[in-house]
């Protein structure tokens, strides 16, 4: 079954208590093969980048088996506010 944008978003919100999630299907023909996500969660606070990415990878472990390419950006709510105001 193809992975959907909603499926990824819902899982990140539910499991990582993400307050904001952007999911973009970046495959050329939107064939659900590659995704780019932005995840904003307070669970990232105090964690280095590698650990944040691992949290996302673990959360989406099942989905990642089907996805060919995966880009991610992980921000804390504070970083997210700062980025928005720039």
């Amino acid at each position: 079954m193809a992975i959907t944008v909603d499926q990824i978003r819902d899982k990140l919100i539910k499991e990582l208590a993400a307050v904001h999630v952007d999911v973009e299907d970046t495959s050329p023909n939107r064939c659900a093969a590659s995704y780019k996500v932005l995840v904003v969660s307070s669970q990232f606070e105090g964690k280095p980048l590698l650990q944040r990415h691992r949290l996302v990878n673990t959360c989406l472990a099942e989905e990642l088996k089907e996805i060919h390419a995966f880009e991610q950006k992980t921000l804390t709510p504070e970083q997210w506010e700062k980025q928005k105001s720039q």
Partner: protein
Amino acid sequence: MNSLIRTTARCLRSVYMPRQAVWSTSARFLCAAADLQKDLGEMVKKDKVVVFMKGTPAQPMCGFSNAVVQILRMHGVDDYASYNVLEDSEFREGVKVFSNWPTIPQVYFSGEFVGGCDILLQMHQNGDLVEELKKLGISSALLEAGKESK
């Protein structure tokens, strides 16, 4: 197992510095070892900077792998070991298991997993990469360029 030796031989060619002497030992290691994981443990420690990628630095076969090569190049890091995961699917899966990381490319500094393309790019952007390279005893070319312009 033959394919593993072939992989090793090809990797050898893709490594910038000649390391044949080291490699012939390692090739036997790979050959004898059903435990690729143990070999990977040694591979990532043998060079300060190790990249598992799709293709070679001269001919990356994926945009993300290419990005890693370009970032390292920008910092003047040319002397690193690169391994082409496309040469062998067992090797490719083994690399992912070893780091517990689902995607390629993967970068290691001094045997320690740094991350994939996203992480290296963000480290490049926020200045962490210059610092991490310094810890390895590598002075980033960007740092040198900055000094000259001052």
